């Protein structure tokens, strides 16, 4: 599903050049649930952003679902993002003046799905994350866990190939974190590929594979026995 070869990325910080990723080789198969771990500054978020086409790579190659991601201009990146990827952010990033339903329907709007169909689908995904009753509420009326579940429904709505989660539980207490992880595991059980960036050991252990990053290179890549979040809930 994801194939990354010899990926380099550096940022210019004034006159200094910060070499963040120093040659990453990394493959993800369909249906995997991979945790990317590392301390802050290890390059894990940068890697996720490149996979998410939110950021551009310097050298190396990146293939997503057989499509080489090269010569990415903004319009093309927008189309790929819409078609292939669903994002889950630490700070949820819901649009505050839109209701839960409208937030979930937004990626479908950019797919030019007609309004009626859009709302039906959005409600379907809200039901899936257990928030059908909250469809008409604004984000400000929802709890953190509920917001993240709306965000997950939104990420799913466009039926992407891969879900990318950047510290999805970073802003949540542990009980709520486990609930969110349980939802992500269920989504993975249905065959969706997931990439989860985290620095929390217990969250990482709820994935099926852990990739450890340190100073811009992969130092460990191992399969683990998945801990079911439902055990904690």
């Amino acid at each position, binding site marked *: 599903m994801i194939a990354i070869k010899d990926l380099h990325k550096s940022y210019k910080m004034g006159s200094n050049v910060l070499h963040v990723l120093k040659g990453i080789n990394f493959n993800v198969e369909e249906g995997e649930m991979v945790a990317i771990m590392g301390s802050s500054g290890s390059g894990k978020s940068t890697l996720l*952003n490149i996979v*998410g086409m*939110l*950021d*551009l790579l310097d050298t190396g190659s990146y293939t997503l679902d057989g499509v080489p991601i090269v010569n990415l201009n*903004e*319009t093309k990146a*927008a*189309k790929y*993002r*819409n*078609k292939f990827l669903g*994002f889950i*952010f630490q700070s949820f*990033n*819901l*649009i505050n*003046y*839109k209701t839960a339903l*409208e937030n979930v329907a*937004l*990626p479908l*709007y*950019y*797919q*030019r799905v*007609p*309004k009626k169909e859009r709302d039906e689908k959005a409600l379907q995904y809200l039901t899936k994350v257990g928030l059908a009753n909250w469809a008409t509420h604004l984000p400000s009326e929802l709890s953190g866990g509920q917001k993240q579940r709306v965000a997950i429904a*939104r990420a799913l709505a*466009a039926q992407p190939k891969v879900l990318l989660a950047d510290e999805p539980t970073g802003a949540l207490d542990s009980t709520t974190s486990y609930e969110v992880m349980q939802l992500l595991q269920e989504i993975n059980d249905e065959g969706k590929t997931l990439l989860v960036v985290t620095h929390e050991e217990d969250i990482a252990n709820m994935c099926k594979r852990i990739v450890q990053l340190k100073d811009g290179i992969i130092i460990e890549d191992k399969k683990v026995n998945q801990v079911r979040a439902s055990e904690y809930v």
Partner: protein
Amino acid sequence: MFSSDNWQEIFQTIKKNKLRTFLSGFTITLGLLIFITLLGLGNGLKNSFNQFFMDDATNTMFIFPGRTSMPYKGYNVNRTIQFKNDDLTDIQKNFPFYLEYITPRIFRNGTVTFNNESNSYSYVGVSPAHQISEKTIMMKGRYLNDLDVKEKTKYAVIGRLVEKDLFKDRNALGEHVIINNTAYKVIGVFQDEGGDNEERRIYIPYTTLQLIEKNTDDINQIVLAYKPELGYAGAMIFEEKLTKFLKEKHEIAPDDQSGVFIRNIADNMNDNQQLSGVLTLIVTFVGIGTLIAGVIGISNIMVFVIKERTKEIGVRKALGATPFSIITMILQESIFITLIAGYVGLFLGIFVLKMIGDKLEDYFILNPYIDLGTAITATIILILFGALAGYVPAKRAAKIQPIVALRDE
């Protein structure tokens, strides 16, 4: 791009962000309201200015006799010059190319009586052309005609205020008034924009006046008009030739400045037009200033709006919005708001001018107006700049990588 879906998205954004919508709309509305009101008031000022200074026909010359200040051809200094009827006919004969019409004026003051009412007025012996030179407007009846002059009829045309003073609410037409012991039949009532004094006048045929005053042919002043197509330069040449002709005829020394006087309205006209031009310039300057202030206002608000929406733009881009769709969204929204607000401002401005109407006449603002073309142009300029002011930051925002926009707190 103009699908109903798109508009729904825009309406929602507008509805849910009332403060933002109000701010950008208000700037445009206020800008236009001020622009239209100021320009309208400026035009009103110009109107009353024109009314003050352009009451009489503008191609007119007044000729006054004076006293000589130099001895000439055996005549003494300080000789009084007297115009006579043959001056009229001589000018008509010698200057047919320049002359449009000519009329004498003989000013007299006297007691005018009707029944038991009497009052003192000035009455003027004139010929029919005087109506054109004074822009006298007939309210009822008729003005003097050539036959009246020829037959020396005892007819009088009285001013609106004379009728009001003497006749109260009655109709003066056909009644007889007594002016200095002679009865005249009122054949017309006039009004004049020159003010109350000019509406307290009585016009009678100059020949009648001469007949009553011991059958002389003396004339006070001569009023004449040159053909307007001569223009300013032509009028100057005419004035020069006329002066020379009259000085020769009355045997006044060629460089004697006080034998005859010619007052040429064209001279005043030139000054007046310059002053009027300055007024126009000031009005235009104020108008452009207001527009620029409006444009700056809307630009500021657009920059603020887009700054506020940076994060939202990042989210939308992460969800698959193309830069184009971001720019169109922001532009459509801003154009829609400015269009509505512009229309409201246009309407309000014109409404305010209508409300003012002639209420500010005491402050020299008469009939304030703005021509619709200018008002609409101003509206379009504001909308255009509102859009442009939105476009620049929108384009920049659409270019920001979503990750940067998302990080923006």
